[in-house]
């Protein structure tokens, strides 16, 4: 750019003039200090249990929207549940990072099936999966159920299938799981607390 000496002086004068005006208070209005808006103000709060270890900490899931008909909810924040007797609001680093676990592209969201000897996993529906599990359990129980032992005493054992339940369940869920499993005669029964 070609600037003559005279033009240079004019630019300087304009600069000094405008900055003086700004200094005299003609500058655009400046926002006063304000903290970041609280992002959970009207988010929906849902209680849940951390899915990781057997401690079973309570978590609060905060989601977008107020559950009205046209609002599609999405989890935006997760933190500890202060009312949960196990953790009283605290969370370990894994629990504190649950949001990224929920939104992970690698998260398994449907049951998958791989045929015996097969190499490919195929997605199946929950109905298909549960029907198949129920059918296989029934077949195995019909075949291997032991009603009495050698002495003729009633034992009602089913030892060929095991059940792995959630250690993070509440007392009530644990009670129900126990009743279902034991009433089938199943003996091998554990949870991920020992995995």
């Amino acid at each position, binding site marked *: 750019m070609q600037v003559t000496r005279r033009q240079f002086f004019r630019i300087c004068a304009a600069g000094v003039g405008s900055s003086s005006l700004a200094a005299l208070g003609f500058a655009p209005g400046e926002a006063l200090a304000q903290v970041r808006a609280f992002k959970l103000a009207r988010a929906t709060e849902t209680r849940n249990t951390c899915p990781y270890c057997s401690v079973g900490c309570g978590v609060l899931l905060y989601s977008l929207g107020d559950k009205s008909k046209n609002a599609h909810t999405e989890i935006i924040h997760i933190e500890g549940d202060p009312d949960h007797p196990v953790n009283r609001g605290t969370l370990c680093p894994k629990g504190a*990072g649950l949001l990224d676990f929920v939104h992970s592209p690698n998260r398994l969201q449907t049951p998958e099936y791989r045929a015996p000897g097969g190499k490919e996993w195929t997605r199946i529906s929950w109905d298909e999966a549960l029907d198949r599990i129920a059918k296989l359990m029934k077949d195995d129980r019909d075949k291997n159920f032991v009603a009495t032992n050698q002495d003729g005493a009633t034992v009602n054992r089913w030892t060929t299938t095991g059940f792995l339940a959630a250690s993070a369940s509440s007392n009530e869920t644990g009670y129900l799981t126990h009743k279902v499993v034991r009433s089938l005669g199943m003996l091998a029964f554990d949870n991920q607390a020992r995995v």
Partner: protein
Amino acid sequence: MALQSLDIKARSATTTPSPDARANGAIPVAKLIDISKCIGCKACQVACMQWNDLRDEVGNNVGVYDNPMDLTDQSWTVMRFSEVEVQQGKLEWLIRKDGCMHCADPGCLKACPAPGAIVQYSNGIVDFHEEHCIGCGYCLTGCPFNIPRISKKDSKAYKCTLCSDRVAVGMEPACVKTCPTGAIVFGSKVDMIHHAEGRIVDLKERGYSNASLYDPQGVGGTHVMYVLQHADQPELYANLPKDPTISPLVGLWTGIAKPLMSLGIGLAVFAGFFHFVTAGPKEVEEEEEETD
């Protein structure tokens, strides 16, 4: 009008006083970090990123537990692990949660030349307002704890806000809430000092005769305080300064250099104007004009 907890005590590069008629009502808050209870799990680091919508790079293992190795624009708090032998043959693993100390006399705010980019609320929180930040990095010079970091992405300074948005609505900071061992606690500064006294009595009974509260008066006290087992040697804790003070360069810049410079600019304009009035515009000869 701002909420009580948002009341402003000081703003950077602002000469007009902040409205503070109601400031007496605000209760100074503080975060107390009890180093003797910290297990270095880094839940606070994760909770901080989660709340403040930050995600740092995954990084590489460099052979120590520190991860990331330093504060960044995405990591406003990091655990610093120090292996020290205070007594011969007695290894101690001191884990300090590093981050902004929220000084009562903030060096960053004093050094900052951008109006309103750094604000101190009457509850003691020192907050950066990145929309006013010019990315000069003076806050780093002013900080006695080497905390602010300039983002490579947007060239603005970032640091811990003490979750000013949570505190403003009556909640505790995210790191405090998540801490599984209760090493981080939050409340009024008076209560935190009281809490620390109890911890210090306990530590002294366990043989840490130098246990004490770290609330350095060189920066007017801080709103993030530590309980140290070896308060006589704070350097053991990843070089925590023993007596932090604001760099004299800050006083030189804001107290002397800046007013002198402003005066110089004004004088130059005045001199130019009077020269123009008395001597008139400089006449440029036709030949000279053409050669330009």
